[in-house]
């Protein structure tokens, strides 16, 4: 039950922050920080065993009819994610209070942030696939709003839209995949699906879509380009969403599916691992050329995400264990790096490493934090990053099929990681010579010293990175819990160790570090590789090109389909009626037997008049004459109703006919007097054919429909009950206002909407066009 309480708290805080944003100013961020704080308290209580066993699993049925159970199961893997989301969330919110200058829309920012945190917590704790999708979409939407928070900057809006489109499309793919898989497995519960592990073609297609969805969210190549774009978001957002939590949602889904699906679905491991490997290499490579610190970190994140996907996607217990460790390590050091870069950007006013020099002396604490985090990223001994890399290298060695290839990719990836880590440290902190810096460099003394509270969060994370390196137990417990939740109890004996002895992994790590230094020191050495990657198309241009093409194509279609001529619309509508239902009626033509043509001479006379008037209405040149002839048709119909013995119908028909005559007159005043002749030669014959066809179709259709009524009419029943129950002899009115009152209620609502619609349409000011004529 506690889990639900925490989630609901996030929702309430989002509402409260939204409302009270203006009054609280920057303190609103502290208000929303209570959400992650509550989650942390819950986790600590759980870690200390204070909670009962049931506290972490609840089941609330949301929409039982479509299997939408709101059951939450917080297992080991969920807890690992909760630590990340809540812990880093808390620190980011504290950090944000210093980062932002006082502004009145902080309330919106805070509510979006806590809503995002709540969505992520829900995503990682729900066992129902549909609820997972709802949370997934919520994160996409909140990320869109957060990226585009500085909405006055066009670039922020553009990248926010880009992120939304890509992750949104991914979300659609995920929904499709999940539905397919849930359909084959027969249950919408995630654990249920993993137990059944369906492999029929539909499920396989489902898994492919799930991988696609996860790939967009976790910025895997080729849909990785939205992440560097998202760097135009405020730094707290980048640190929280686009490094530690949101981009890991895809990994969460892949990790959940991998252990059960990997061995069963043949293509799963190669595809996912391959995807991860390519992303790792390409991400690392692009990071080397980045000059904006946040862009460098963004590509670094893409690379690290690839690395985690490579480990977690395989499904082998040891690899999953290493993946979970890296997941934790990456969250720690990448969030620190973002926070540190945020401090530098905030104080120095720029993130371009060509304009920064001598920062280390101006803000030693941030510099130290950045240095340690970068070292952990590169995998330098005693830090937690090193342990993760060692575990990864060791586990790839033990993998049978494809193991060596994976190890090679990891080593090359680590070389690149080490290289861009050095580039980051040198770029942001070092005191550079005149030739290594642009002319508009920010002089160190112009950089103000950051307030202590501002650097606090980064320091806390750095302490964790160092502490987990030296004292592995707490991290190990967390990771083992996560792995056993994913793979099962047999993974319980895999443990983290700082020192693996002088084995191959240590050698490979040091090779990676040295290689990294070489690549960074002498970029010339990798010139040849640059030629190869230059030919890879930049996905961002592909995205922009496809968007432009889509819009151009849409314009062309609208021009063709909606040329603005009313008769054409009419013809299209009627001919569709003729084609689709018309053909259907013709195919099973069952005319009622004993077709009575006319009961009395009078009916024939009246029908003749009606038909005569109708033909007249079609032929006459003047608009109002046509309306008058139509009036004759309507009155003729009313008389037919009288002859058939339906007074209510006759009354309504007469009245409606007169009112439409009135409305026609009111409108026709503004229209030219005569019908325009059709410019197109075939206009007239086409109209005759279409209208004749429609007339015949309606007649035949009515007959067939009447004949098809097998169960007998409801009239008898209504007639009987009219007086006793309805209290009235006029069965028509009793039906209208009593038996079927709900339908009438619907109808009068339609009337209200129609009245409002017309009023709005007519009263919107219409500028007379060039001929001075007020348009129709």
């Amino acid at each position, binding site marked *: 039950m506690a889990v639900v309480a925490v989630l609901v708290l996030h929702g309430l805080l989002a509402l409260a922050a939204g409302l009270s944003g203006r009054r609280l100013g920057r303190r609103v961020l502290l208000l929303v920080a209570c959400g992650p704080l509550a989650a942390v308290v819950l986790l600590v209580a759980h870690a200390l065993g204070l909670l009962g066993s049931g506290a972490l699993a609840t089941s609330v049925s949301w929409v039982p009819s479509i299997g939408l159970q709101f059951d939450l199961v917080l297992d080991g893997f969920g807890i690992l994610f909760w630590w990340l989301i809540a812990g880093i969330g808390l620190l980011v919110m504290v950090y944000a209070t210093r980062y932002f200058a006082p502004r009145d829309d902080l309330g919106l920012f805070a509510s979006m942030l806590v809503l995002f945190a709540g969505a992520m917590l829900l995503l990682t704790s729900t066992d129902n696939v549909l609820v997972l999708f709802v949370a997934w979409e919520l994160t996409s939407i909140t990320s869109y709003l957060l990226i585009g928070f500085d909405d006055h900057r066009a670039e922020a809006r553009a990248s926010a839209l880009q992120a939304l489109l890509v992750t949104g499309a991914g979300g659609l793919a995920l929904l499709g995949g999940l539905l397919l898989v849930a359909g084959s497995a027969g249950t919408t519960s995630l654990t249920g699906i993993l137990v059944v592990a369906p492999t029929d073609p539909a499920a396989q297609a489902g898994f492919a879509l799930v991988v696609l969805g996860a790939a967009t969210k976790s910025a895997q190549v080729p849909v990785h380009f939205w992440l560097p774009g998202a760097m135009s978001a405020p730094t707290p957002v980048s640190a929280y969403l686009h490094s530690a939590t949101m981009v890991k949602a895809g990994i969460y889904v892949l990790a959940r599916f991998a252990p059960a699906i990997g061995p069963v679905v043949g293509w799963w491991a190669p595809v996912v691992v391959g995807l991860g490997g390519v992303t790792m290499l390409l991400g690392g490579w692009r990071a080397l050329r980045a000059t904006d610190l946040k862009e460098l970190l963004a590509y670094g994140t893409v690379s690290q995400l690839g690395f985690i996907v490579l480990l977690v996607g395989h499904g082998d217990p040891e690899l999953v264990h290493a993946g979970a460790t890296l997941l934790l390590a990456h969250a720690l050091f990448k969030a620190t790096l973002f926070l540190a870069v945020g401090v530098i950007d905030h104080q120095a006013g720029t993130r371009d490493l060509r304009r920064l020099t001598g920062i280390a002396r101006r803000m030693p604490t941030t510099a130290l934090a950045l240095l340690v985090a970068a070292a952990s990223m590169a995998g330098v001994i005693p830090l937690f990053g090193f342990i993760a890399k060692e575990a990864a290298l060791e586990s790839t060695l033990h993998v049978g099929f494809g193991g060596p290839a994976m190890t090679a990719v990891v080593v090359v990836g680590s070389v690149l990681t080490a290289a861009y880590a050095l580039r980051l440290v040198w770029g942001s902190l070092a005191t550079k010579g005149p030739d290594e810096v642009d002319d508009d460099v920010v002089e160190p003394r112009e950089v103000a010293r950051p307030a202590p509270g501002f650097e606090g969060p980064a320091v806390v994370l750095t302490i964790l990175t160092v502490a987990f390196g030296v004292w592995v137990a707490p991290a190990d417990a967390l990771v083992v819990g996560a792995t056993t939740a994913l793979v099962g109890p047999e993974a319980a004996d895999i443990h983290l160790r700082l020192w693996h002895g002088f084995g191959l992994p240590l050698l490979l790590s040091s090779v990676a570090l040295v290689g990294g230094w070489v690549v960074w020191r002498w970029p010339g050495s990798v010139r040849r590789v640059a030629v190869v990657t230059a030919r890879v198309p930049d996905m961002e241009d592909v995205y922009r090109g496809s968007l432009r093409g889509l819009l151009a194509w849409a314009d062309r279609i609208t021009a063709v389909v909606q040329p603005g001529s009313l008769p054409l619309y009419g013809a299209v509508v009627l001919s569709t009626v003729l084609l689709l239902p018309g053909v259907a009626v013709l195919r099973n033509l069952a005319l009622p037997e004993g077709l009575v043509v006319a009961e009395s001479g009078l009916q024939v006379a009246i029908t003749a008049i009606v038909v005569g008037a109708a033909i007249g209405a079609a032929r006459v040149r003047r608009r109002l004459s046509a309306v008058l002839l139509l009036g004759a048709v309507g009155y003729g119909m009313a008389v037919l109703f009288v002859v058939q013995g339906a007074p209510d119908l006759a009354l309504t028909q007469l009245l409606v006919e007169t009112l439409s005559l009135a409305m026609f007159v*009111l409108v026709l005043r503004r229209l030219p007097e005569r019908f325009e002749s059709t410019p197109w030669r075939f206009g007239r014959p086409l109209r005759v054919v279409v209208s004749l066809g429609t007339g015949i179709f309606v007649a035949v259709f009515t007959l067939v429909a009447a004949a098809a009524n097998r169960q007998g009419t409801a009239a008898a029943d209504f007639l009987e009950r009219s007086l006793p129950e309805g*209290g*009235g002899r*006029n069965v*028509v009115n009793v039906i209208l*206002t009593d038996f079927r*009152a*709900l339908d009438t209620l619907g109808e*009068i609502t339609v009337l209200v909407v129609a009245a409002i619609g017309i009023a709005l349409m*007519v009263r919107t000011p219409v500028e007379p066009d060039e001929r001075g004529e007020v348009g129709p």
Partner: protein
Amino acid sequence: SPRRSVILDVVLDLVFRTAVLFGLFLLFAGHNAPGGGFVSGLVIGTALVLRYVAGGAAEVDRVLPLEEHVLLGAGLLLAFASGAAGWIFGGAFLYGAKATLEIPVLGTVNATSALVFDVGVDLVVIGLVLGLLRSLGAAADRDADDVDTRRGVAS
């Protein structure tokens, strides 16, 4: 204005009242004889159209000063209220109730809750006609007038 016909105005006063009265008659007679909310609304609507023909939008406003959305809203609300009342007392939404009332002048009258619903329908229909007259009539008049004045035709 030169366009108003005195004869029409005189006769109209008489006919208008008769029409409205007949409309109300249809409403109340509706349950047992032909009629009902919808028809009654249309009859009264036609009477309003007559008023519009005679004296334009100003005349209609004089006769029925209400805004049309007030009528629409009141009608819909009344219909829902009668439904909700059925729900609260009778257990199901739009549940009908019957009562035999002793009204001094009219003698024994058996009224049904459906009548309230019918009045709601009536108001909605009148509101619709009024709305149409106001938007298609009055608004179009304004456009027409300024178009005519721009083209120098004394309308």
